[in-house]
Each structure stands twice: as structure tokens, then as C-alpha cells.
């Protein structure tokens, strides 16, 4: 099975993240880049499927030169090779143009199964898997906490508010995973050393026949018009327990629509 797993480098959520004042895009140099957390689960799932069914795992990442660190990590975990789509023209792409660029690249490299994390911790749109499936003309199986492949049939458990739905399709398909699906492995030293020798193919937009006028900041469908720093957190509400603390706490939660 030819599995392609999409990984994205995101700014470390543990550090302060900010937008650039000039073009209002994310300042990717201001914070340490790490692998988007959910993508580690996607890589792990890809590796488990390969271990069970054979085949090959290719990492696909769209991002600046710095994203090679993220690609190396996925290779150190055990992926076989990588494709790095990197081009200045891609900077500022929104979800629609990102899905277009990735879909064109996927068509070029070929796949039986594409696995993604269900969202990234920076943009948090959570729509990429659906967009990719649409562009590639394949079934989409999103929010999976379990994936099973049997020949050309694929089934997932899709997490819902009330439990899960069982969703079945046939390959090729696009799957997005949630963090309950597995426990990602830590790379071993052997994996780290092997990753240095694994092939990483760097593609510019021309190499993947991506047209420049459909990607980048200029062709984004939405625009950040203005932004402001989050206001400092307001003082909390103090409820004094005068025998009715429980009721007051419940009223507070209800007012915030938590209960």
C-alpha cells in the first residue's frame, strides 16, 4: 500500500505566537517550529498500517525550507521517503489554495491512502482532508479514532458527540485522524541516523504543475483585515459559598452554556 502522510510544521504552542505586522500572516520565524501534534498521530497510523499490510510511507509537507526539520522527524519515526513542496509563491496560501497545491502534488506522486491530522494547531480550520478528497475525487473518512484496511476496503470509526459512526469506503481514500487513535512512537537513535540517508525530494510549484495564480497570499479567498492582541484575562467570578454554592456554581456553568 502506498501511503502518503501529510505533515505540517507549526509554531510551538508552548511559545508565544504572533502575526506579522506587514502582511498579517503568521510570523513563522518568531517561534520554534515543531511537528503539528495531530500529524504525529497520522504518521504513527501510517507506520502501523505499513507494518500490518506492507507498502511504503511517504511524507508530504508544504512549507518553507525550515520545514525540513519536521520532515526529518517523520522520517526518523520510520517513514520511507519525503516530498517537500517549497516555494516562495506558496507563502500566505489559505486552506483552499493549500488543498489545491497538495492535491496537485498528490496526483503527481500517486497514493492509495492519504492520512492527515484532523487539524493544525496554528490555523485550526480542520477542512483540509475534506477539500483534498474533493479535489482528488476520492472518499473522505474524517475524524478517525480507528482505521482498518482489508485489501482495497477501508473502514474507520468516526468520532461523534454521541460515540462513533462506522464509515466504510474503498481505496484510494483520504483519512484524517484524531489523537485518540494511537500513541505516537518516539524516534529511536537508529531511526534518527537512518533519516539522514532517506530521500527527500524538494519540489517547486512548477515541478508539481501548480499554477502560481491559484496559490499564495494574493489568491487567498479570505483576508485578515485587522488584528489586535488578545485582551488580558479578566478577573474571575468569585462565588461565596453560603450554603448555596452548588446552585450558584451550576447557574454560572449554565450561563456559559457548559451545562
Amino acid at each position, binding site marked *: 500500500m502506498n501511503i502518503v502522510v501529510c505533515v505540517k510544521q507549526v509554531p510551538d504552542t508552548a511559545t508565544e505566537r504572533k502575526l506579522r505586522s506587514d502582511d498579517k500572516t503568521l510570523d513563522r520565524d518568531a517561534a520554534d517550529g515543531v511537528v503539528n501534534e495531530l500529524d504525529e498521530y497520522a504518521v504513527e497510523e501510517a507506520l502501523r498500517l505499513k507494518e500490518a499490510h506492507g507498502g511504503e510511507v511517504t511524507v508530504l509537507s508544504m512549507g518553507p525550507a525550515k520545514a525540513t526539520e519536521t520532515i526529518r522527524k517523520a522520517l526518523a519515526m520510520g517513514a520511507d521517503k519525503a516530498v517537500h513542496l517549497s516555494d516562495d509563491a506558496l507563502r500566505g496560501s489559505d486552506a483552499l489554495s493549500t488543498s489545491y497545491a497538495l492535491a496537485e502534488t498528490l496526483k503527481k506522486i500517486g497514493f492509495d491512502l492519504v492520512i492527515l491530522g484532523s487539524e493544525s494547531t496554528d490555523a485550526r480550520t480542520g477542512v483540509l482532508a475534506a477539500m483534498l478528497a474533493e479535489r482528488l475525487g476520492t472518499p473522505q473518512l474524517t475524524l478517525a479514532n480507528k482505521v482498518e484496511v482489508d485489501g482495497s476496503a477501508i473502514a474507520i470509526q468516526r468520532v461523534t458527540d454521541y460515540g462513533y459512526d462506522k464509515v466504510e469506503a474503498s481505496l484510494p481514500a483520504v483519512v484524517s485522524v484524531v489523537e485518540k487513535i494511537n500513541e505516537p512512537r518516539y524516534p*529511536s*537513535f537508529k531511526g*534518527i*541516523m537512518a533519516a539522514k540517508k532517506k530521500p527527500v525530494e524538494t519540489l517547486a510549484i512548477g515541478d508539481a504543475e501548480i499554477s502560481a495564480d491559484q496559490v499564495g497570499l494574493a489568491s487567498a479567498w479570505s483576508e485578515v483585515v485587522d488584528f489586535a492582541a488578545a485582551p488580558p484575562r479578566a478577573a474571575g467570578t468569585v462565588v461565596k459559598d453560603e450554603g448555596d454554592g452548588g446552585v450558584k456554581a451550576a447557574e454560572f456553568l449554565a450561563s456559559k452554556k457548559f451545562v
Partner: protein
Amino acid sequence: MLGDEYIELRKTVEAFAREVVAPVIGDYYERCEFPYDIVRKMGAMGLFGLPVPEEYGGMGGDYFALCLALEELARVDSSVAITLEAAVSLGAMPILRFGTAEQKEHWLPKLASGEMLGAFGLTEPGGGTDVPGGMRTTAVLDGGEWVIDGTKAFITNSGTDITGVVGVAAITGRNGAKPEISTILVPSGTPGFTVSKKYSKVGWSASDTRELSFSGCRVPEENLLGERGRGYAQFLQTLDEGRVAIAALSVGLAQGCVDESVRYVGERTAFGNAIGRYQAIQFKIADMEARVHTARLAYYHAAERMLAGLPFKKEAAIAKLVSSNAAMDNARDATQIFGGYGFMNEFPVGRFYRDAKILEIGEGTSEVQRMLIARELGLGA
């Protein structure tokens, strides 16, 4: 400068220690329980095979890689670090260095995967520094088998559910007046080999330390590790390497003290300021940082010589001496900075304080390190 692969390894172990060890280890420590689940995960990421060649199921790395992993683990907790250190440098390495092809094939894959732990029994109730003077354990050949009798004290990793083999140093004869010492591999569960209950320890509470007794314990003649009569020379080499590993572990603990202190002094206030604003506190932390930095350079240097095949006995002794001192001093200072909270087991510095002292004792006391350094300078009796 470290190579990329070492930097990556260090980051990976740092993340593992933070994400997997830190949240749960205090609880294991409090209950004096061996953390099987953590050890299994350390095995899965290949830590037990770091310096073991790939043909024996290892990672094909080197001893320095092991040192980096020990440092990062000990920044968070020493019990798991010493479990790794003893399993690799005292359990697996002597088999890798001195074992026969059969012994290596039999033991190393299981030891390198962490599925099985190894231990090494040198110290006896009558003495750990004075070897062989304090050694009473004997092994006698009888009908193609070694018959072992004696007692070993304070043996790390020797009594866990996954311990598979203990290398036992024993007197196997005499060369004139001198005892002949050899090492014999004794599989766990061999009749006549009894593991006593755990010691109640001041620190390293989530690690396994036992007294072992051997009474007419019989193992095949082939279980001799390396040459007969070479046991003493073998473990001197093992201990030289082990000192670099213990130095790395000590540096980790000393660094953990700096990490915790820097964080805490920004949060804790007294007299209207964060206590980190007071120079008395800043100077303490500056001294702590200077100690850990110099100690790290000392162990990097010893490891570099060791890997280059140069003599490193003196450098290893210096690294062990200064880094265990640094650990002890930093633990004392960090506890002081934390005030009463520093004396509480639930704070990492409380554990650091309890775990630091053994570093000046195990794998050669600080006095022994000074003796070795003096001897290397040509000073001797």
C-alpha cells in the same frame, strides 16, 4: 559542537522525559515501585540498545549517545536514569566487550530491546571499595559447572520481574597469594540464587536494588564471561566507562536543579518581589549553572577520549568527581531556594536532594576517584 544526530537524540529523550516520565514518576517514587511501564517505553524507543551494534538488535550508536540520554532522563528523574545506566553499562556492555559469540547472540538482543534487564554484582556486604580484599564470593568448577557461594550487596536491577541475568564477580582460584577473580553469568531463577527483598533507600526509590545470595548455585562452565582470571581487569574497564555514564547522569540531576530553580524564582514572591530579583538568589543560581556547565564539559571530554580510543581513566575519574559534587551542591542549593517546598517529596527538587548523595558513592566513591587521579599523576603508595 554536537552532531545533528546527537542533538536530535537529546531532544527526543528530553521530550520523552518531560511527557512520559515527569507526570508519573513522583508517584512511583513515593510508593518505592519500579516503573515497568516507563521502562517498557524506554525499551521501545531503543534506549537500552544505544551503544549496542545493530547485529545484536541495538541502535548502532555509541557510549556518548547513551550519556546524552542519561543526562536528559536524570534532568527529570534519577531512578529511571540509573535503571538504564546499570542495565546498559553494567549489564549489557561487559557481555558485548568480553562475551563469546554464543553469549552475545543469546543475551544482547533481549538486553538491547529493554525486554530484559541485566545487572552486575561486584560489591559485597564486606566492602565495595576494597576489591578483591573484601570479596568472599567463590566459584568452583565441578563436573563442567561453576558452583557459586557468597553474597552480593546493593545490586541495581537485580530483582525486577524482567531481570534476566546477573554478572557475578567471584574468586575462582589463587595466583600465589593473590586471589584469581572471574565473572560468571548467572541467569535469574537459577536454583541456589536468591534475591532478597528491596532495600529501603534514601533515594533512587523507584529503582531496584537488592542483596543477592548464592548457595551451591550451579551454572554451566560456558557461563564464564571473558577469560578466567581476567575478571578484575574486565570490571576495571567496565567501571572506567561506567564513570563517564554516572558523570552524565550527575550532570542531568545538576541541570534539573537549575531548571527548576530558574522557573521557581520567577513565580515565588517575598517582600513584594519575585525572589529571583534578589541577588543572593541570583548568585546561587549562577554558581549552580557554572558547576553544571564545567561538569558537562568534563564528561564530554572523557567521552570524546574514550570514543577516540585514547587513555581516559584520569578524565573519567575527574568527570565523575566534579559532576557528582556538582549534583550534590546544586541539589542542596535548589532545595534551599525552594524553602519548605524543597523538603517535600512531591517537588522534583525534593527528589533531587535525596537522589544526589549516592552519586558520590556508587561506581567508585569520590575518595576512589581522587586515588585514581593521584595515581595517574604518578603519586602512589
